[in-house]
């Protein structure tokens, strides 16, 4: 049995209906526990004050924003090479979630930036590259919306995702070069000294896990919806032929 079997819509529907409740439940548990822990059971950091709590939404959503694009890149490639429809539909289903994640990261960042840097917005490389990522998501979704034929749309958005990814990476690099920035570096890496203390670290991990699971649940749900929409379309077409 190969993994490609799940590219068959019927098989996918069956499996996903089994998996979905578990993932959803787990995501809910992680999120509720993680957020409650983070928001109410952690002390205030001295130089961050209350505002440190934003981290429990900000970091997971920021990570998801990037990872969802990577996932879309992979599924687009699978579609372009092996032409599994579920793969293309999964990419389509993921994009709006990614857009919302990017948006959440931007908004929580802005909310955080106000007390920390004294400004809602700064043209910092991190922030800027997220804005560009936001634009890529927008363009990608707009292209899906603008094309009627699902296969055509899948092909074109796939190509866009490929080219876009290369340029997103390029932009990230270019932006770094262009401005030094205020945003902290990756403090989650385990070997760094400036790692945040464990008090914040564990609830954060839980939140991140919660966001990942939440994304998987949403993705399964939305892909199932897309497949149903597709099925409806196929049935309508048959109706017309008859």
């Amino acid at each position, binding site marked *: 049995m190969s993994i490609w079997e799940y590219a068959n819509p019927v098989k996918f529907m069956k499996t996903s209906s089994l998996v979905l409740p578990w993932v959803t439940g787990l995501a809910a548990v992680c999120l509720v526990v993680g957020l409650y822990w983070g928001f109410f059971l952690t002390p205030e950091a001295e130089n961050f004050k209350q505002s440190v709590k934003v981290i429990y939404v900000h970091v997971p959503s920021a990570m998801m924003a990037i990872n969802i694009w990577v996932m879309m890149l992979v599924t687009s490639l699978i579609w372009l090479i092996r032409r599994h429809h579920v793969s293309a539909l999964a990419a389509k289903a993921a994009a709006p979630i990614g857009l919302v994640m990017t948006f959440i990261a931007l908004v929580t960042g802005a909310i955080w930036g106000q007390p920390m840097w004294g400004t809602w*917005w700064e*043209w910092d490389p991190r922030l800027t590259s997220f804005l560009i990522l936001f634009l890529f998501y927008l363009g990608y979704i*707009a292209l899906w919306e603008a094309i009627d034929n699902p296969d055509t749309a899948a092909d074109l958005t796939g190509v866009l995702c490929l080219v876009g990814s290369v340029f997103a990476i390029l932009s990230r690099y270019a932006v770094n070069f*262009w*401005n030094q920035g205020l945003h902290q570096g990756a403090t989650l890496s385990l070997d760094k000294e400036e790692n945040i203390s464990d008090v914040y670290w564990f609830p954060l991990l839980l939140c991140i896990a919660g966001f990942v699971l939440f994304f998987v649940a949403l993705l399964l749900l939305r892909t199932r919806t897309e497949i149903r929409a597709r099925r409806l379309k196929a049935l309508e077409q048959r109706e017309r032929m008859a």
Partner: protein
Amino acid sequence: MIALLLRDLRLAVRAGGGFGLGLAFFLIVVTLVPFGVGPEGNVLARIATGVLWLGALLACLLSLDRIFALDFEDGSLDLLATAPVPLEGVVTIKALAHWITTGLPLVLAAPVFGVLLHLPGPAYFWLVVSLLLGTPALSVLGAFGAALTVGLKRGGLLLSLLVLPLYVPTLIFGAELVKRGASGMDTQMPLLMLAGITAATIAVVPFASAAAIRVNLR
């Protein structure tokens, strides 16, 4: 007439986005400016009003050529011209549809973009007011340019060329209004001028546009 408005709005929505795309373009212009001029907050704040007005103007401009071009290409414009509706009305309605899909969303979203450019606090209110007053004129003037160039292949650039000078007064008074408003100076003069320009434009220009279309069809 209502039917035409509804049709145009529906077409805009079906064409993928309608409201969203103008906004997205605006967002992009605003994003690109710091890449060009550098990320320093004080420089950006200094030019924010101008950039936002220019962005609105360009977002408007980019969507202009479609006001009549599609209807011309598929022959609807011929048919509308022979239908029992005054061509002046058609022109006005089409400009209105353009404003609803492009201008209005910009007005609503401008404050958000203001944040990106470090727009100073008191300027937000005046930015919205000036855009609300000014953008209808942009759509109506744009419809005039589109009417002049309908049927010309590659009208896009020519259209911009014709329309941009017409936009200058609106731009000047719009930017001036925000500047004065933000610095607490007297705003009456640019406010009146802006409102006057828009009102006069809406009242008069559609006749010129209709005439231009008639000429272009024959």
